[in-house]
């Protein structure tokens, strides 16, 4: 499938570029918009961004690899982010993530985002989700859940 950015999105980004003193400064906003639209940042998206902003692909690729929020592969339909920062770790988020991995047939020893072969779920460890009082915290897509027990964890998978 050929890479193509909708005209409306491109117009939006062109307008956005004018808000910055130098074009390069708009790189992050381009990447956010492209990830929002395509679900991940493909090599074509990197090349397109570089072309639009008079950059070299390596300049954009550096950004994409630096920020964990940018994905270079499509994610699962449901994204499960388990917090591993101190409060959640103490409250058992490790076991929680292991539980997800076991249930979904993923490797608990891999510390990178993993997606099930059917493309339904992505499980990953993330840093603080800013809800330490409700540890352990899990974010399912854009929905934050606190005090997640193993039973509650299972409910996410059946919803």
């Amino acid at each position, binding site marked *: 499938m050929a890479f193509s950015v909708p005209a409306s999105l491109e117009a939006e980004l062109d307008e956005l570029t004018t808000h910055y003193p130098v074009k390069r400064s708009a790189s992050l906003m381009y990447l956010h918009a492209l990830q929002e639209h395509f679900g991940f940042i493909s090599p074509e998206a990197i090349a397109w961004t570089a072309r639009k902003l008079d950059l070299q692909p*390596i300049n954009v690729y550096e950004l994409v690899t630096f920020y964990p929020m940018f994905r270079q592969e499509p994610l699962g339909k449901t994204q499960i982010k388990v917090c591993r920062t101190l409060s959640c770790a103490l409250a058992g988020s490790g076991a929680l993530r292991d539980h997800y991995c076991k249930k979904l047939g993923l490797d608990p020893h891999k510390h990178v985002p993993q997606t099930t072969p059917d493309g339904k779920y992505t499980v990953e460890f993330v840093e603080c989700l800013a809800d330490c009082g409700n540890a352990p915290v899990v974010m399912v897509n854009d929905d934050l859940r606190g005090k997640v027990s193993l039973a509650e964890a299972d409910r996410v998978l059946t919803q």
Partner: protein
Amino acid sequence: MSNAETPAPAPAGPPPVETLTIKVDGRTVQVPKTMPDWQGKPQATTMLQACALAGVDVPHYCYHPKLPIAGNCRMCLVEFGTPVMDPATRQPVKNEDGSVKIARSVLPYEPGTPRGAIGCATPISPGMEIYPNSPATKQMREAVLESLLINHPLDCPICDQAGECKLQEYSVQHGQATSQFVEAKVHKPKAVDLGPRIMLDDERCILCTRCIRFAKDIAGDDALGIVNRGSYNTIAAAPGMKFDNNYTLNTVDLCPVGALTSKDFRFKMRVWFLKETKSVCTSCATGCNITVGSREDTVHRYEPRENDAVNGPWMCDAGRLNYKWIHREDRLKHVLIRGQKSNWATALKELTAKLATVAAGSAAVIASARQTTEELYLLRQLAAKLGALTDSVPRTQQADRLLVSADRNPNSNGARVTGIATGELGARLPLIAAGIRAGTITTLIVFGEDVTQCGIGADLLARLELLVVSDILPNPTVAAAHYVLPGCAHVEKRGTFLNGKGRLQKFLKGVEAPGDTRPEWEFLHELVHAVTGRNGYTSMEGLFNQMAQDVPAFAGLEWAKLGDQGVTVSI
């Protein structure tokens, strides 16, 4: 590349340089207030530059005088102090003994702890004191070095950089014998194919970004960057893209460690076995200064040799890799008389007899602008005696914006000043061809060219009564020659080239020539002496000095005055 001329005695003396007085290691030194930055523009003198002027070497990895400053390796951290100023009078506060009170730099929240600053990017100020050898500075260096080595594989025994590696050198000078690091090292990509000539070992990399800056700011090819984050930082090109411009191999020289390696040189030779010979690149009229690395008469690499009047510290990849022909199996190794192996004594004796009887105007000399100036000069003497037409062969291709000249001959100007060629090289070649066709030219002397490629085909060569050819490799002109005199590559002899901008540069002999080959200037000297009766020198030095007397452009020059960097003459 700056166009700095050779230091000529300025009539009025140099303009006064504004200086600052500082102390380095307790010694008072006066240093210029500004110094040239990587582009040659004056910038505030840095602590590192001031220390260098005071004769104190500050270790560094990321700093390079010809690249923009990055300040990321932290190796050049030094402890320093500045005069304490009275806030009311804005005058320096004095100690009881009358000396200026100095405040050593300390951590703002921890006044007992010295705080260093990076020498490469910190400008000096009046009265500053730099302590490049203080215990605090030493401690900082040890810590930085230890940190740089945390994820380094320490595979020195098989690393190409071993022997010329700044990690090794600084470890000896500033390192600690043991590491406190007991954790597992981060593993990064190895043997990364970065481009057609470059292989990258990311584990050895210390992320100084010299290669990135060179690619972007010098070569104009922003192809490299740092990807990933933290301990996983890795030098890379964008996926699917190659680091491929005509200057990539300079990053191998720039790399202070063994991360960037030349595919051509990789695993071929330990650098400490290489004999280094000062020479000049022959691939174009720029005449980049090079160091030839050879071992036991085999050339293993060329590296650029810094000369700000010519090539700065760089050279192009094409020129750097243009040495393989020197050791080709089919090198001409024997003197041939009508295809039969002979020897120098016989050939030169016969040639002397033949050339002595050549009728005036019936001979022509085609001498390559790849021959040395001395050889061209000798051939010009011979041509004058024979009343011969002379010329060289032009080699014109596209120039680039950095170093590569459109003229791919190393010595076109040498051919011009010696009178072998006038103005445009090759202008007289059609005349010579016509003369051979008309039967007025019956003797042709060719040095270093295949004339069948420039309008004098095998049919014309067959009409000649005498065809004398000196060359290094076989070609159709050599095949047609009555006398073949095997010559030498530039690394096998001494001589000079006059570059496109009039820089006369000498090169020295690095390896012995194979077989019976002799440097052209040697046998030409014998031949020209025998034919013309003119002599007066027995060595390259003597020959050069003789030439300098005869060639107006070289007036006043002597071999010894050429130095390692050559001199600019007016052409």
